[in-house]
């Protein structure tokens, strides 16, 4: 698969690009390259999506390639399953995290199982894009972090970018994948920027590889999606406290890159998992457990978790108390039993 965008995009965009633009560009390039890629969802056509990710696609590729569907998420995903059965590569947009729940049965009982059920005869090259997480002042049901549900469903890949470049690269890889991918878009990073411009070809990132965003020696922060900027900021702040933190961006929750994570923790001996999803039953438990299993004798302290509370997502005016911020990350780092090493 190549990433070369041979033609100029419909609209020339100035640097720097936002994550939203990178996602839109990834869709556009995928559609231009492969006529079997179809985008469908609520308001994705004429409006270009409520976050404008699909802006311009209906115009460029027509309503049949970028389709405003009736308002019914199970129907959307179910129809996408049928389209995939006929050889298309549907890319479904769910409007918000909690509005993917009506499609849960289609996802768990069909999307995740179709290939396995048919002994490989019927693959599901389908991408489900879901804006997720909070921090944008969304009203109730607009800020869920639902990644734990998808992680616990064998047969799905679960991918989430934290940078503008990855947004492009991982979405291209997800659409190109012959396996179904739940592509989680951290909505509060939609307007984050990077010097990368959609004019430049961006690397298509293979799914399943974590990346060290900041090398360090004292401890490892393991995170993904919306919490990466928090961890980067915490790592900078930690320098003043004498800690040199390594930051690992998972990028893909399934498959999980045990290699990169374990190598980092073995090096640093301490780890904190950071995510905004609720703690109990959230991704952090799995991640912490895996680290403990693999790095037990290298650990100077238990793997700690900094997460959202175990509560329904709060109303906007209170969300800042729920979301893990720099202070909570540093607090956790401070609790990593530093005296033990000496």
């Amino acid at each position, binding site marked *: 698969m190549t990433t070369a965008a041979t033609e100029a995009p419909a609209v020339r965009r100035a640097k720097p690009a936002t994550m939203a633009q990178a996602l839109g560009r990834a869709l556009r390039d995928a559609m231009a390259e492969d006529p079997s890629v179809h985008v469908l969802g*609520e*308001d994705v*056509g*004429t*409006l*270009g999506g*409520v976050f404008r990710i699909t802006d311009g696609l209906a115009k460029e590729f027509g309503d049949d390639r970028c389709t*405003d*569907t*009736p*308002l*019914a*998420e*199970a*129907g959307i995903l179910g129809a996408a399953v049928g389209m995939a059965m006929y050889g298309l590569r549907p890319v479904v947009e769910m409007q918000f995290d*909690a*509005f993917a*729940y*009506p499609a849960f049965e289609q996802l768990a009982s069909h999307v995740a199982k179709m290939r396995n059920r048919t002994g490989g005869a019927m693959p599901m090259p389908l991408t489900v894009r879901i804006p997720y997480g909070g921090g944008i*002042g969304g*009203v*109730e*049901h*607009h800020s869920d972090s639902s990644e734990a549900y998808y992680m616990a469903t064998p047969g799905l890949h679960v991918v989430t970018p934290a940078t503008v470049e990855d947004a492009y690269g991982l979405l291209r890889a997800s659409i190109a994948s012959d396996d179904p991918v739940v592509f989680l878009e951290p909505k509060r990073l939609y307007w984050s920027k990077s010097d990368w411009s959609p004019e430049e070809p961006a690397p298509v990132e293979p799914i399943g590889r974590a990346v060290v965003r900041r090398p360090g020696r004292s401890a490892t922060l393991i995170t993904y999606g919306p919490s990466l900027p928090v961890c980067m900021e915490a790592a900078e702040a930690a320098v003043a406290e004498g800690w040199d933190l390594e930051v690992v961006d998972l990028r893909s929750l399934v498959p999980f890159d045990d290699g990169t994570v374990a190598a980092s923790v073995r090096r640093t001996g301490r780890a904190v998992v950071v995510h905004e999803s609720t703690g*109990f039953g959230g991704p952090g438990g799995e991640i912490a457990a895996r680290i403990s299993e693999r790095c037990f004798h290298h650990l100077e302290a238990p793997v700690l978790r900094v997460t959202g*509370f*175990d*509560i*329904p997502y*709060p*109303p*906007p*005016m*209170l969300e800042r*108390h*729920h979301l893990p911020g720099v*202070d*909570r990350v540093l607090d956790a780092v401070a609790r990593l039993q530093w005296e033990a090493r000496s």
Partner: protein
Amino acid sequence: MTVQELPGTTAYRPVPPPAWKPLTDPSPLLPDREPFRVLGTPAAAGVEAALLVRIHAELVRGRRFNTQATALTKQGRLAVYPSSTGQEACEVAAALVLEQRDWLFPSYRDTLAAVARGLDPVEALTLLRGDRHSGYDPREHRVAPLCTPLATQLPHAVGLAHAARLKGDDVVALALVGDGGTSEGDFHEALNFAAVWRAPVVFLVQNNGFAISVPLAKQSAAPSLAHKGVGYGVPGRLVDGNDALAVHQVLGEAVARARRGDGPTLVEAVTYRMEAHTNADDATRYRSDSEVLAWRDHDPIRLVEDEMTRRGLLDEETAGRARDAAERMAAGLRERMNTDPALDPAGLFSHVFSGPTSQLAEQEARLRAELAAERDEADGAEAGR
């Protein structure tokens, strides 16, 4: 059993197969071909003056509520507001046809219906201000929380109405949903349960032409949304949703029917969303000004005022009284929305369960410690100044 086992040689009898019989007569379930109207028809003359005046006052107040709430978004006092401007006839009629003991199940766009039913506007707006998900006790005015996940409130209304009937209580539930919401599976399941259970529930579809940017033609190919009723054995009624008298009458009949024990009704009110989806939406992306303009001629307040004028009911005093009441409501709302709501972050843990779990108690303690530290720091900063 195989065919060989079948007894004898009885000749084939061209009778309906034993289990099949039409369950219901379909004809009375089908809507009329044209939306039902009162205003502008001879029937309008038969409507009591008092009702006309009351509805007019409620519409004026409702419109004012909508404009005030929209203004509050511009002032940053409301995070977002999905306006029901243009749909006030439906919102108001939905509130007026119910008795105190009845229940209203609003969708996220129906703050006005909740307010018209008697809810404190400030409490009704917490969801959209962002201080509380649902700032009122649903039992006080028997208004379910404004429902964001589309159509999910419909089975709730059915269950509640069913429960009331089982308890022998004379309670009707009225549930609101949009044209887009009718596409969700929950709409289907709710209508079916209501019909099978003969639950005292009325479904009001406000067909305002759009689901955000998606026009009705991309939402449904049905003759009308009211035609969905017959598929459940539920009568479907089509009404001009901007004709407040018509909506009031059709909903009133449906509520009476439910109260009599004759089961649910599906009402489609044809109306139009005059504003964008919310203040955050840009409606010019998907519809023309001329379409919006055409609907101005069909404004619900205007239609009522035309009839009042015709009957000499719109004197300066009546109009003034309605306007004044609306302005008082708006002024009160403005004032009360101008103060920041008092919020206790540690309250985040108070209502997850009926009692605290050890996990939540731990987390609450941690947050309280953080808040105390924050306060100390702030105090320190202040003292240092």
